[in-house]
């Protein structure tokens, strides 16, 4: 038995993976290894030209990362991402439920719900930036005087608000997909049992959404953490301290400070720091294992 299994394992057509493997190596593996290498050398505009000879400084860049604001940026990024996800989930699910049953104009409502999602991030940020000017339409409508939304501590909440506005349709789409997969028999059975809407929603329907929505949470959180366009267009660089999220810090270090080694170290560190909870989470919800 054991030997037969071994033979069949050997006979698996692994070579079919070659094109994919090649692409993965080219697009992910080699750049990743390069980034890790760069994070150990003192690469800046002075050494760029002979980058192979740039001095190896071990963990020097990593130590400096911690002294140049990376911990705060990580905290800002993570809290911003978790907060955005936490708020978008109930909105997304509610929106999916609203468009589940057929009614006149449902197609229109569904289309409207997708508008924030299909707009390019750059457009979303530019429009919000204009609306949130000190003498802009938001302050004028709400009678807030000249409240500053794009500077100081308010900027953090602006970032969260705009991200929520732009990102909730993703949860909505995933939840909608989950709702569609609920069998008709389930609806019939609950009708036969005479279930009222609230128990039906919480005990019957929502459990169906658990899988897709959890996956959506994971993807959405990662998207929030990686979002560079939104803070960059909303606030510009240098960004106010309260929205100096990880992508902004890495960008400024790399492309304005020209410290490529330091920024590579920051990028690698953030990758590791995100990977740890991500791994734990994936194990916990068992998204990475076959059922």
């Amino acid at each position, binding site marked *: 038995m054991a030997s037969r299994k071994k033979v069949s394992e050997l006979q698996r057509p692994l070579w079919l993976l070659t094109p994919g493997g090649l692409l993965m190596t080219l697009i992910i593996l080699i750049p990743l290894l390069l980034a890790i290498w760069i994070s150990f050398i003192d690469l800046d505009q002075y050494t*760029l030209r002979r980058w192979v000879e740039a001095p190896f400084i071990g963990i020097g860049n990593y130590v400096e990362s911690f002294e140049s604001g990376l911990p705060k940026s990580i905290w800002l990024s993570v809290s911003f991402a978790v907060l955005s996800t936490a708020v978008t989930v109930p909105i997304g699910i509610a929106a999916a439920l609203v468009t589940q049953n057929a009614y006149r104009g449902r197609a229109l409502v569904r289309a409207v719900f997708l508008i924030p999602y299909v707009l390019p991030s750059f457009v979303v940020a530019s429009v919000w930036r204009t609306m949130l000017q000190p003498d802009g339409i938001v302050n004028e409508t709400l009678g807030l005087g000249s409240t500053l939304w794009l500077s100081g501590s308010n900027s953090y909440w602006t970032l969260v608000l705009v991200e929520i506005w732009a990102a909730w349709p993703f949860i909505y789409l995933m939840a909608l997909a989950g709702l569609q997969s609920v069998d008709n028999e389930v609806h019939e059975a609950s009708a036969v049992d005479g279930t009222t809407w609230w128990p039906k929603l919480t005990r019957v329907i929502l459990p169906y959404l658990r899988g897709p929505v959890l996956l959506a949470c994971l993807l959405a959180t990662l998207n929030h953490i990686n979002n560079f366009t939104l803070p960059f267009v909303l606030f510009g660089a240098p960004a106010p301290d309260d929205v100096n999220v990880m992508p902004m810090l890495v960008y400024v270090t790399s492309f304005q400070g020209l410290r490529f080694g330091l920024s590579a170290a920051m990028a690698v560190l953030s990758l590791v720091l995100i990977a740890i909870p991500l791994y734990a989470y994936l194990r916990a919800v068992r998204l990475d294992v076959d059922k």
Partner: protein
Amino acid sequence: MRFGRAIALTGATVLVAALTACGGGDDEGGGGAGKTLNVLIGANTQYPEEFAAWQKSISEKFKAQTGAEVKFEQFASANDELTKIQTSVVAGSGPDVYAVGTTFTPTAYSTGAFVKLGDEEWKKLGGKEKFVPATLGISGPDEQNQVGIPWVSRPFVMAYNTELLKAAGIDKPATTWDELTAQAKQLTKGDQYGLAIAYKDNFDPWKFVWGMSTQAGNPLVDGKTAKLQDPTVKKAYETYFGWLTTDKVVDPAAIGWTNPQAVAAFAKGKTGYFALTTATAVNSLDSGAVKGKWAFTLLPTVPPGATSRPGNGVEAASILSGDNLLVADYSKNKDLAFEYVKLVTDQEVQLDYYKKFGNLPANAAALETLKSDPKLAPLTEAAQKSVATPFTGAWADIQLALTNVAVQTLPDLAKGPVSAATLDTRIAEAQKKAQSSLDRAK
């Protein structure tokens, strides 16, 4: 495992092959015919069609002169250009000629990837004396180590509303910063403001601070030492923030403005001065309510709190602003590259470029012909009185640190004047960043 290694090896081979293919654009050998010169140039978003036409006419001229083609490649932002320089520098192949902004020239110089200009190179270009002397100020750290060939200049000036000034009984625009503040106070009444300032711009703030400090005798960098904690810098920030908080001569909404927003505000015709602008704003101004009622004038050159410039102060009317041309060290077409640079810095081409795009010539004779136009006189004067920002690879960081002081202070300004202690802390932080960057400079 062996399989994995084979994949990795194949991947690396493909990568190398791809890189070689990318670098294959360079032609080798002598003579112009059949060769292609690659020029990297900033995209012109204001006049894209005219810019394409200009490129075409230059290509034709160049072909007639040398037999070689010019291929223009455009970049959208300074970051695009930086990425291009990075990859070209690492790969040792790419554009032959780069057009780079003046303040970016020290950074480009520090990569060591560009041809240093000796007597022979200058001769090929038609001599150093062909250029406006001030424009050579940011070509290199010293006369022996120049890489940048001045191409166009965009000196900064002030725009003022001639009618509002006249109505307020001001017969001559301000020439000192104190005078400017006083006139702005006179001009501020009702819905009318004395000054338009772009407080949230990512570049404007450092230009004010550098200008005022330099005029007071502190160019911010002394050899390898950053001098941001000098009283002149604090005075500059206080003056700059004070217009909004203590003098109240600026629209409170200016706290959220970038430079184009400030242009738009001034163009409405309800503001006395627009303190930092350049020739490229002409069209925006002429399409606003202010059309026919505005003029350019030099920025003040006497530091705040003074009635005359101190002995060590510099008459810095503007940062040295514009574009330089750099020839890549790795280029296999250096002779062609210099011929191209000569062509676009010649009087006729420079004047044509000015007419199309409003960038002032770096060519001295060309600039001279524009002096007779009274409307342009302040611009040509500013071009001649422009002063280079310190030539160090650390300048990008210093500029960023100076702007950051303004960015972080904006929320305080909304509440009123910023306290001396807060300002000191922020300047100290900027000083630390600037110094650490200077310590790394080679």
